[in-house]
């Protein structure tokens, strides 16, 4: 029952903020992830009153975060991206993963990180990408194929 009612935003935010920031940092790099984090949770706050129940909130916020990522890719690369060499020193674990998925097309990158980094279902990833479960599965598997090719090359 409790999971069906919409929790106060504070509870939703403290449950997911750290994890969502981790995801954004993996996909975008730490500097740009900070702005994307603000944008993600402000969008969540705007959409919160329209929610009909409190189920799938984790998938919901990952959907928003992924759309923010894809929107930021459509815009010209912010200057910040070039000026952030320090992040690799600060967070070696992320840097390693970032290096692996870096260079994948944005959709494949998001699909791979959401599936293997955050264990989201393909259905949820399809929602996040604004496409379908089938398309999400394809994006993830083609991303993985590309990574394999690269690691054996």
């Amino acid at each position, binding site marked *: 029952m409790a999971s069906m009612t919409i*929790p106060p935003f*504070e509870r939703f935010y403290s449950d997911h903020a750290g994890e969502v*920031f981790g995801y954004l940092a993996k996909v975008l790099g730490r500097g740009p992830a900070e702005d994307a984090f*603000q944008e993600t949770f402000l969008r969540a*706050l705007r959409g919160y*009153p329209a929610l009909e129940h409190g189920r799938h909130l984790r998938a919901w916020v990952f959907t928003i975060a992924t759309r923010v990522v894809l929107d930021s890719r459509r815009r010209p690369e912010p200057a910040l991206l070039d000026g952030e060499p320090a992040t690799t020193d600060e967070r070696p674990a992320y840097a390693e993963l970032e290096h692996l998925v870096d260079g994948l097309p944005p959709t494949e990158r998001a699909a791979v990180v959401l599936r293997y980094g955050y264990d989201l279902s393909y259905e949820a990833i399809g929602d996040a990408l604004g496409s379908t479960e089938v398309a999400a599965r394809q994006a993830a598997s083609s991303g993985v194929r590309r990574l394999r090719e690269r690691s054996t090359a």
Partner: protein
Amino acid sequence: MTSSLPSELDRRFRDSATEAALLDAAYDVAESPVGPLLVAATERGLCRISFDPDPELELDRLAALAGPRVLRSPSALSRARRQLDEYFGRRRTAFELDVDTKALPAFQQLVLEELARVPYGETATYGGLAARIGRPRAARAVGGALNRNPIPIVLPCHRVVGSTGRLVGYAGGLDRKRTLLALEGAA
């Protein structure tokens, strides 16, 4: 939280949410001589001061009262917290804060409006308050309305005493009532 969020980033989000006026209610927790206080406000004004130091229970109540977008926001409550600090430091005798009592029953709103007129350092009786709102026989109902006062301290229900001057019930406990009256020099 499964992984850590830099505190600077957390603060920035709470500030932006407040500035963008996207919150149904904001709250913060303040230390005071009567224990930790949860202080909450809507965009209309202060709506809650709770002696319960555990925000979890209060979050659900706030969400039911104001809407689900309840977020801890120190910047939204900084003015109220400063005035409370001044009050507890005996540097303030009147609060200059808007209050939001819109969700309360009309009778209780009337009682609380009258209550707000009881000056610092003085006391009134339940019967006296009842008479002032034109309901001289409603002392018990006035007591009930005060017992459910959502904004104690700022709306000074601690200044209301029994007809013999005795300190009778206080939702926050008689010790707190005694402390507040002593602070104001009324005990």
